[in-house]
């Protein structure tokens, strides 16, 4: 199974770091799309089939929480899992995002190991080893 993943972060370097981490997870990746804000992410989601969204929290235009809330209100998007990847390590922020509908919450800096476990847990829990 290969995955199509949307990486959402306003920092180009952060997107590169996530791309690199995905490349080191040994997961089969069919396509990685990128967006610099929640608004760009929604546009990408409307034109591409995506298995998973990896999303930052603090972004201009539409932040990560607003994107999650918007996705969960849309019938065609609410089934797409979202993993938040954020520098904000407070429990309150994590709880807030999970309550809004995010499926998991990872702290930056991410590691390929934690990313792989989170992706498999959501998309293929039977393969989680």
């Amino acid at each position, binding site marked *: 199974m290969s995955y199509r993943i949307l990486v959402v972060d306003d*920092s180009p370097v952060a997107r*590169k770091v996530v791309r690199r981490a995905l490349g080191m997870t040994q997961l089969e990746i069919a396509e990685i799309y990128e967006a610099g804000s929640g608004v760009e992410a929604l546009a990408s989601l409307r034109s591409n089939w995506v298995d998973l969204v990896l999303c930052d929290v603090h972004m201009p235009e539409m932040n990560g929480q607003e994107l999650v809330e918007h996705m969960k209100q849309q019938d065609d998007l609410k089934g797409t899992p979202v993993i938040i990847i954020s*520098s904000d390590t407070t429990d309150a*922020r994590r709880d*807030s995002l999970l309550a809004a509908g995010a499926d998991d919450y990872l702290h*930056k800096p991410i*590691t390929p190991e934690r990313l792989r476990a989170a992706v498999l847990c959501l998309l293929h829990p039977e393969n989680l080893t």
Partner: protein
Amino acid sequence: MNDEISLLSHSLARAASRVLMEGSFLFTLEADEDAELPAPFIAARVQLRTEDQPVLWVDFSVQEALAVEITQSHLGETGPVEAEDVRNTIAELVNVIAGAFARLVVAPGNLCSIGSPMLRTEALPEGGAGVMLTTDNGQPLRVWLWAEGQ
């Protein structure tokens, strides 16, 4: 207030050390607070708003050569990296350091807001406090903290 900022700056140094170890495999030690950070260096700052602290600014400064090494580590590059990537990496790092710092100082249950990181070209403001760190191979870097309006 200055004593409090000085104490908080050591929490900031711990947060920076943890982030650098996890993300860049750099081990750091706290160095003499009066030590200088020789030019040229790259600095970035970010605003941190919490429910239980004054508005704080977190600053991270690193010598250019070390900034290049950190960028190579983050991007998995062994060759030259673009100057823009180096600047963006340091800006991203101050963001991550501020987030790790928030976990140490924000009361459980309280939210914080981390602004957009920006490169700093102006001098550090008076009234803040900082900690010099050195990597295990002796390269200096500095974290600095100040309260807005102080």
